[in-house]
């Protein structure tokens, strides 16, 4: 009996450093591909922790050199769940994935994180980080992501869904119709004004001697492919279950 208790205590003690670590400052920079130096990693960790406090969103920076054949979106989603990331009961958060396997960057958004980032905002952030990634400045790209994300959350706020205006008054609707009508009327008038004069009908073939045009040299040289991935967002405003979004780009 005593022996048994002793063993349990011994097991508890041997695991305790991990438990204490898990309870305290949880790790949020998962540099599996070893892209960051020690100092970069610490700096990012500090940034992430302060941002989590400011934004009340969980934030993780993940690098991976083997995504086990998954797409970046699936890998990010699974990683988020496996590490039980998320702030509050609804698992609000953001995950910044640098996928070295496919040379792709992916921003994963969840619940309240999703509310702040629609496709166009994600695109804007990607525009800013991709140049650093192409350049090999991985830590710098993560830092830029953190600053941008914080700025968006704190100053731009939640994306107002266009569906919200659906309940607008009948007058808004009429105003929209009126706008469309005026544009249609204007377009008709412009076409008529353009037609109110003689117009040139000379084109590139008018004075060309029949059959005299020859292409003597052609070049069609492939040099690169770029790929963008965009999570298709369905039912932005409603539904139960976790709200998941994101977007990525190759670098």
């Amino acid at each position, binding site marked *: 009996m005593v022996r048994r208790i002793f063993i349990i205590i011994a097991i508890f003690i041997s695991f305790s450093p991990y438990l204490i670590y898990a309870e305290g400052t949880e790790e949020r920079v998962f540099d599996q591909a070893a892209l960051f130096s020690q100092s970069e990693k610490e700096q990012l960790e500090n940034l992430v922790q302060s941002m989590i406090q400011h934004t009340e969103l969980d934030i993780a920076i993940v690098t991976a050199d083997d995504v086990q054949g998954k*797409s970046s*979106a*699936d890998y990010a989603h699974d990683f988020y769940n496996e590490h039980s990331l998320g702030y509050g009961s609804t698992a609000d958060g953001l995950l910044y994935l640098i996928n070295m396997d496919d040379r792709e960057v992916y921003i994963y958004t969840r619940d309240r994180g999703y509310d702040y980032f629609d496709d166009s905002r994600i695109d804007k952030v990607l525009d800013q980080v991709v140049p650093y990634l192409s350049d090999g400045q991985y830590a710098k790209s993560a830092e830029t992501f953190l600053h941008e994300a914080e700025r968006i959350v704190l100053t731009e706020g939640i994306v107002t869904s266009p569906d919200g205006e659906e309940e607008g008054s009948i007058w808004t*609707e*009429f105003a929209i*119709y*009126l706008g*469309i*009508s*005026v544009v*249609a*009327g*204007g377009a*008709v*008038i412009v076409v*008529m*004004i353009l*037609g*109110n*004069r*003689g*117009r*040139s*009908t*000379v*084109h*590139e073939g*008018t*004075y*060309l*001697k029949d059959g*005299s*045009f*020859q*292409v*003597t*040299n*052609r*070049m*069609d*040289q*492939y*040099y*690169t*492919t*770029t*790929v*963008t*991935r*965009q*999570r*298709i967002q369905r039912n932005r405003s409603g539904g139960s279950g976790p709200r998941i979004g994101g977007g990525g780009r190759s670098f």
Partner: protein
Amino acid sequence: MGVIVYKCINCGGPLAFKAETQDWTCDYCLSQFTEEEVQQFIKKEEQSQEFSAEEQVREHEFQEKSVGYSCTSCGAEIVTDDTTAATFCYYCHNPTIIPRRLEGEFRPEKVIPFKLSKEKAAELFIAWCRKKPLLPRVFGSQSQLEKLTGIYVPFWLFDCDVSGNVQGKATKVRSYVRGDTRITETRHYRVGREGKAIFQGVPADGSKKMDDDLMAILEPFDYQDLEDFSMSYLSGYYAEKYDMDHNEVYPRVTQLLRTHMQTLLTNTIQGYSTVSIQHSNVKFHNVKVSYCLLPVWMFTYQFQGKTYVFAMNGQTGKIAGELPISKARAFAWFGGVAAGVFAILSAGGLFLW
């Protein structure tokens, strides 16, 4: 021999070229003449009035400096500006040609004779006006169209070989959905084309009096109707000689051909989602130029204190010029269309929501 008036061999009445019948019919005795017969008449005239070379030089100098010519029919002075080659006597209204202005370097190689008579031109113009929804209704009545003038306008026709190349970037975009993700793949290419072409009969008017833009809209002329130049075609019309030589109009032609060549080359870049041309280069070789007179009906139209100028291709009937706009009709159209669209949208909106 200051001026030429073609006269009917039978009755001595003045002869003018008739667009409907494409010959010379005497208005007085209804005799018809072919081009050959009219040419013989000139030869006879020339023989009877032969000048020695020396005299011609003196005559030439005298005429260059003199302001006017005398009408051979009534003796009155014919006053013209110094680019006019064919006109009418101010007093007896006989068609009059000033051959000095069509000689030497000013002798056109070819001419397209008028195909449309004055009546036909007026008719075509009115028909054209009817189709314009914004035209004030009172505009375009026959009575105001009296000032229709048929003018042979000096044109330079350029033939040239062109070679060129274009270079740029192109993409092929492929987009598909896998699971919840839309994947867009963009393949980037460097593209280039080199080619050559021959352009023939590119016209540019050589008269400063004629608005270049107006003349450009009259194009194209059908060169099938080009005839060797004969002064007899000018009888009954006005004619101008060029006051811009082919070197002066050449830049206009090269600019046009440059864009045409770029378009031809760019059009051969097929099978891409986007193409953007970044560099192009066009060169001209074997440039040949010929001087022609082409038929144009010109008329001015006074309307509400403003003068509108129109030109019509005297061969094909194509019209150039800007018509006045009736604000009332423009507003009516705008209001009608806007109200219609609004009604449809509102009706649709009310039923749907």
